[in-house]
């Protein structure tokens, strides 16, 4: 594809040759959207693209550009599929492995534990892919001049989080997040139980040897207490020929497997033959109805209250056991008659019982408890005006945040409004509010100017300001310096794309197909040069650039392009020897922008978005704060951090914290 040629020219240094040739190359790139004749894969047909990316992963065959897939769809769709999958959280997972490999039970959707598991799962997949891709294209690096290898590397190294890479550190691989049960264990079972197909169905095989002998089975993982509530359902597919000696419940890993759960220590179960419940002993207690073929029995534990309950065919029977405090309890079923078959649902499919409402009610209960709190609780317990203390605390948090992050104008306006507020209140008494005038400090104003420059896209100005104001910051924070430099490149590409106008694409549409099968970089550029002449002429004729003279705009565009490419060279020269993986990746991602005729319409558009300025600005601001000996996070951020850790602590053993997701419940 054409983007390669442009990238190659930057990378391999060809771009430093004469002017017309270079602009020719890029101008053709500008139009390559039409050339490829495949606008669709950029946006929509991810199914198609997905197959390509998958086959690419699967065979790990990363050499050579002339592979068939390269011609038919090219690497562009690969981007499309990966960006396309970002929207739904499971996209990456979904087409990477079978759908059964990762799922979130409906009642745990949006919970913090589910998020952690998903992050861990994604990180694991990414690490696997990374391993494979490194393995197969170990020779590829930015400093190599062989463009095909370089360019090729770009494709497989992109995964779901592509353009985040510039902004955030690689995700932590969290090995310690406890998975929930996903299937019956093939190993942790009594011999006479057979696990069928997908691991959800179990069947008692062959005649019982002795009258006393039964068989039970555990799941692959215990029920994580961090879920707060764990729930699963078991359908009696068949009670077999002779009876319905079936027990459904849970137990620890110590429970022997030749007995029905419930009879042994550390096991609890509800039995179908008599409707009794058994808790660590063979003497049962009358509990609910008997159950038989086609009945759906649900079993849930609320780890916060320590209560376990059962449901039958979507109706709650009631609480069966209390004071369940054990760690690591596994869902268990036990049987004793040939032909007995049970099928479990650990959340892969919707439940018969409305467990979602139960969890929702639990969450609301805890939210209610939280809202009874006085927010300033830990600060001044002695006060008799709790609400006012909370208000004062929030005022202070806001003022401090605005000052800390250099929102000078906002801080001023807020202080003025608060002053007005207390003035109305204070006509005859002490306002009871602290004086909130933010200290006008030069530091804040400097930081505000630097931020404003970045948010404006004027990276040079920000760099200049920073160098003058805190010279050490850029030196000590090389990664931030690098990000700023990359951002500058992005801003230049933005300017280029702004100078090109959509209508241009239609004018050149017709004459683009001649070169599309030619992958030789050099020839290609020559052809492009020819095309450029015509394109240029038409451009002048058809263009209506706001108030600009056409010729002028074309010249400006070329100058801008020239400047961008030169800058790209510099950037590459400065950082291409950097061994760090993130740096290489960020460089690759950034340069990939040059590949697109109009990057705003490509799948890399998010990289160009102005919102990308914000994290860079924030990072620089934090670095300056640290250099001033101040905390890099404001009190409000600290408050969020503390809340998150405290909630995680409270969720650890299945307490109330399990029902709280700080980010989605409180920050959005």
């Amino acid at each position: 594809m054409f983007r390669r040629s442009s990238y190659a020219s930057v990378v391999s240094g060809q771009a430093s040759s004469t002017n017309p040739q270079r602009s020719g190359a890029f101008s053709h790139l500008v139009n390559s959207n039409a050339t490829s004749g495949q606008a669709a894969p950029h946006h929509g047909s991810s199914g198609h693209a997905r197959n390509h990316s998958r086959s690419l992963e699967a065979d790990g065959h990363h050499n050579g550009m002339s592979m068939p897939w390269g011609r038919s769809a090219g690497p562009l769709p690969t981007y499309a599929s990966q960006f396309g999958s970002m929207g739904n959280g499971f996209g990456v997972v979904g087409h990477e492995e079978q759908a059964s490999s990762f799922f979130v039970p409906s009642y745990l959707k949006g919970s913090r534990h589910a998020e952690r598991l998903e992050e861990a799962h994604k990180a694991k997949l990414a690490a696997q892919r990374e391993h494979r891709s490194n393995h197969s294209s170990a020779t590829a690096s930015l400093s190599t001049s062989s463009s095909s290898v370089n360019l090729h590397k770009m494709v497989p190294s992109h995964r779901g989080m592509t353009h985040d890479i510039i902004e955030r550190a690689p995700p932590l691989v969290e090995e310690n997040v406890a998975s929930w049960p996903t299937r019956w264990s093939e190993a942790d079972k009594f011999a006479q139980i057979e696990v069928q197909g997908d691991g959800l169905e179990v069947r008692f095989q062959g005649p019982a040897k002795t009258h006393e002998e039964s068989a039970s089975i555990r799941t692959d993982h215990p029920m994580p207490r961090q879920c707060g509530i764990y729930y699963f359902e078991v359908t009696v597919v068949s009670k077999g020929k002779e009876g319905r000696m079936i027990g459904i419940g849970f137990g620890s890993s110590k429970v022997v497997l030749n007995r029905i759960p419930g009879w042994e220590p550390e096991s609890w179960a509800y039995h179908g033959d008599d409707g009794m419940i058994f808790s660590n002993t063979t003497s049962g207690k009358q509990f609910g109805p008997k159950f038989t073929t086609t009945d759906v029995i649900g079993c849930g534990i609320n780890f916060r209250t320590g209560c376990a309950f059962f449901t039958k065919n979507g109706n709650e029977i009631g609480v069966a056991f209390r004071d369940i405090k054990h760690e690591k309890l596994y869902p268990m079923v036990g049987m004793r008659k040939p032909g007995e078959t049970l099928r479990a649902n650990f959340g892969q499919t919707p439940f018969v019982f409305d467990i979602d409402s139960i969890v929702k009610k639990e969450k609301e209960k805890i939210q209610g408890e939280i809202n009874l709190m006085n927010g300033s609780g830990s600060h001044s317990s002695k006060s008799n005006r709790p609400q006012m203390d909370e208000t004062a605390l929030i005022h202070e948090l806001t003022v401090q945040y605005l000052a800390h992050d250099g929102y000078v104008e906002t801080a001023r306006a807020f202080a003025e409004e608060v002053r007005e507020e207390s003035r109305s209140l204070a006509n005859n008494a002490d306002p009871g509010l602290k004086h909130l005038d933010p200290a006008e400090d030069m530091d804040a104003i400097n930081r505000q100017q630097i931020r404003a420059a970045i948010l404006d896209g004027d990276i040079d100005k920000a760099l200049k300001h920073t160098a003058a104001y805190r010279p050490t910051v850029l030196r000590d924070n090389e990664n931030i310096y690098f990000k700023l430099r990359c951002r500058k490149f992005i801003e230049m590409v933005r300017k280029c794309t702004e100078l090109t106008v959509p209508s241009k694409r239609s004018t050149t549409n017709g004459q683009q197909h001649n070169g599309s099968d030619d992958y030789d970089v050099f020839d290609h550029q020559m052809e492009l040069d020819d095309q450029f002449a015509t394109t240029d002429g038409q451009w002048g004729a058809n263009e209506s650039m706001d108030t600009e003279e056409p010729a002028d705009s074309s010249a400006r565009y070329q100058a801008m392009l020239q400047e961008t490419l030169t800058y790209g060279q510099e950037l590459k020269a400065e950082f291409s020897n950097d061994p760090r993986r993130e740096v290489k990746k960020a460089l690759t991602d950034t340069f990939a922008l040059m590949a697109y005729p109009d990057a705003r319409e490509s799948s890399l558009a998010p990289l160009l978005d102005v919102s990308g300025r914000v994290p860079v600005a924030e990072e620089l601001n934090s670095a300056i704060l640290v250099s001033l000996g101040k905390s890099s996070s404001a009190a409000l951020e600290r408050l969020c951090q503390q809340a998150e850790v405290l909630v995680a602590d409270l969720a650890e053993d299945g307490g109330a914290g399990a029902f709280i997701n700080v980010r989605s419940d409180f920050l959005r």
Partner: protein
Amino acid sequence: MSSSTVSVSAATPTTRHSFQRRVDEIKPSKTDINFVIMDYLINEGYPSAAKKFAMEANIQPPIEEESILPRVEIRNAIYAGDIEKAIHKINDLNPQILDLDPTLHFALLRLQLIELIRKCMTTPDADITPALTFATSQLAPRAPTNPEFLEDLERTMALLIFPPENLAPPLAALLDPALRQTVATRVNEAILGSQGARREARIRNLVRLRAWAERKARDAGKDIPDKLDLGLNADKEGDDEDDAMNGNGETDAMVS
């Protein structure tokens, strides 16, 4: 796209970090924090700060600045003790708000009575007739509908009996400006509720969450520092112990 992720180290007992280190590992998203600030400025009625913040932080204000103004005016009227004006403005906005919430309406009327009484108390030889007339015409007819109304009315009327210099605490509380704030907050919440918006700013839930979680964690005997410092000036007392606790001293020295 959000600017950073909130990632937490796994909190299993074997890999347990010190509390402070785990706090430092969490990177709240600036986008989220800015959203919470914007939500607060709009919810609690700081329109010009909200406008500036939208510009400085480069974010879209979720609603028009103008739609905040009536709430600001109502708040300031209540703060200034001009309850009549506030009630008019509330009814201009949406007459159903007070119709559907007799408790809130009563609270406003009682506040108006308190302001009338305050006038009598602060000016020598003032006429208490307006206050009495207001009490009998506006509040007395409503009092029987709710025992709490009656009690509130009786207590308020007691202000006329006792000398202002020597009031019992429950009576003094009626004259405290905090009562105006409480009522103004309730009015604000009712208006927001009537507009289908969140009644309270997210930041309030957030500070409560932290306070609640800290108490719960202490009750459960979790391993957390004796004092959780936010880095506000008000926290300064007892900072020395904190520094010892917070492993990395220099980044914890907080901003003023």
